[in-house]
């Protein structure tokens, strides 16, 4: 049975410019120990869906309009008490964020922040918790952990801070780790190390990982399965093989075309024309077809296209978008 089962999640934001449908009917599941990647542009809803699971959406103006998120077959994260959620956060589901510079409390020592989750969730004594915290730091590759644990966050470099975040998240051996763009704010050289570290810690704890990113490259080496999101909906879902070798949705294909390849130096880059959609306006049909510079057959302009199963593992949302060729993209530019 899946460790997390999300059904028809809808999260809207009620702003003075209108209702922004950030997540508009998203369903997915996560198996124990597997890595699920959620890929999409800014505004696709990838982060908001996971924040909704954790109850981190500011309400107001946000509101979880509908949906279920069953954790371990027992509790519905979207319909339980705040107290219950507090017990789950940091214990069963942990989260790490994009910017390690700002995600750690600058006024508290690293030791305090590391042992906090242990003291709250496992009721350890300070001494016990400290010992575990030091060990956790060593596990993420920080040397001289027993001295450095007393440092303040600003005394660590960016990459090390992200390691501390990972240690902090994994210290309670959570069932799921949600990583929201964990490498986006880091140097390229450090990115690979952090991803490796996440993979390694995941195996050691047998946790599932939900990796949120806009970068297909990050997803390629890490994920067992991938959900591609656009305009608050999942447009394609499958194993890494499915997505990279047998992509069917035009958006997924366009994303892959846009990855600059190391070989073709000097050749023009493919870009997806137009801009992400304005989610405050209702979108009756295929959001990707509505994008400026994108042509389509018009079949799904007014009707929401359904998700269609292509194989055991592979699902695609119907779309009759015709992607522009490289020449057409260059012309517009």
């Amino acid at each position, binding site marked *: 049975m899946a460790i997390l089962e999300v059904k028809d999640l809808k999260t809207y934001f009620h702003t003075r410019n209108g209702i*922004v449908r950030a997540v508009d009917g998203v369903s997915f599941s996560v198996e124990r120990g597997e890595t699920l990647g959620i890929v999409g542009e800014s505004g696709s*809803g990838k*982060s908001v869906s996971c924040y909704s699971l954790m109850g981190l959406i500011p309400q107001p103006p946000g509101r979880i309009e509908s949906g279920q998120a069953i954790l371990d077959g027992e509790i519905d994260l979207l319909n339980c008490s705040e107290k219950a959620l507090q017990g789950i956060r940091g214990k069963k589901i942990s989260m790490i964020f994009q910017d390690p510079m700002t995600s750690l409390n600058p006024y508290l020592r690293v030791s305090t922040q590391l042992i906090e989750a242990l003291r709250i969730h496992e009721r350890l004594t300070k001494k016990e918790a400290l010992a575990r915290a030091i060990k956790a730091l060593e596990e993420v590759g920080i040397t001289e952990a027993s001295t450095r644990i007393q440092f303040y966050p600003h005394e660590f470099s960016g990459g090390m801070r992200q390691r501390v975040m990972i240690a902090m998240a994994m210290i309670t051996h959570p069932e799921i780790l949600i990583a*929201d763009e964990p490498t*986006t704010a880091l140097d390229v050289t450090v990115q690979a190390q952090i991803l490796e570290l996440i993979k390694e810690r995941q195996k050691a704890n047998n946790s599932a990982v939900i990796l949120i990113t806009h970068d297909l490259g990050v997803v390629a080496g890490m994920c067992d399965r991938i959900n591609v999101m656009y305009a608050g909906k999942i447009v394609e879902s499958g194993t890494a093989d499915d997505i990279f070798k047998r992509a069917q949705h035009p958006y997924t294909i366009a994303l892959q075309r846009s990855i600059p390849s190391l070989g073709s130096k000097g050749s023009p880059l493919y870009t997806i024309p137009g801009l*992400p959609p*304005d989610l405050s306006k209702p979108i009756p049909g295929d959001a990707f077809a509505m994008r400026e510079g994108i042509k389509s057959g018009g079949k799904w302009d007014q009707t929401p296209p359904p998700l269609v199963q292509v194989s055991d593992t592979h699902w695609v949302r119907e779309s009759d978008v015709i992607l522009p060729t490289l020449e057409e993209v260059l012309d517009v530019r």
Partner: protein
Amino acid sequence: MSVEPKLSPSESRLPDVSVDLDNIESGTSLWQDAWHRLRKNHMALISFWILVFMAVFCFVGPFISPYDHRDNDLEQTLLSPHLQHPFGTDDLGRDQLTRVMVGGRVSLGVGIIATAVSLLIGVTYGATAAYVGGKTDAAMMRFVDVLYALPFTIFVILLMTLFERSIVLLFVVIGAVEWLTMARIVRGQVLSLKEQEFVEAAVSLGYSTRRIILRHIIPNVLGVVVVYATLTIPSVMLLESFLSFLGLGVQPPMPSWGSLIKLGADNMILFPHLLLIPAFFFSLTLFSLNFLGDGLRDALDPKSSKD
């Protein structure tokens, strides 16, 4: 990464770099947005109209009044408000209504002029420091820091006590105190603007220095200057009234709200109207100025703490 979703296409673009790009997307510019926010701020709007009323009351009023603020009438001393003297009379029989009006003229006048003076000095000083940068900037701001640390009210009182009390000295002293804050703020704003990406973008697009200063730096500094000018006026008025209350400011028979309040305080046990009426006008004006300034600050700063 913040949780807020993208609201409109225009917000995902670079902030406006030139007029041409503005017109392509139908987003709202910074000024329109600010005006929008200000309009919604009821307190700020009410304050604005109160201030308009005060300006008319104080500057036009004395011309309409049948009395002069200096006319003594020893047969009509210390009268409570009634038809012929709607605000009553003081201990020399002078009409309080007229005196409150003229007092307002003085207080507001000092407020505006002294603010203008401190603005001139402060903006020039701050902008120069920020623009020149480097060691000169550091030295200039050091000077400001040292001055800031000195206990100013004490010096002000000393100066006003020891030397000839003239309105000129009053202006000099008040201006000397207030320009420091304005200099700091302007410098901070110019510095942060210098480093902002849209200025770098403009530079890389080849815009001339003059164009950058006129189109990008000044409008952004203007906002901050307007806000703090609006907030400096009440600060100046407080200082002037404080001095007048202690007998060190404007000299009789010239009234200011501060000296009127002092007179009222001296007589308040038997004649409370002498205290309460000027106090009311003074406080209402301060209140409105502060609210308007606050409203302007919230309107111009997208990251205001109210949201």
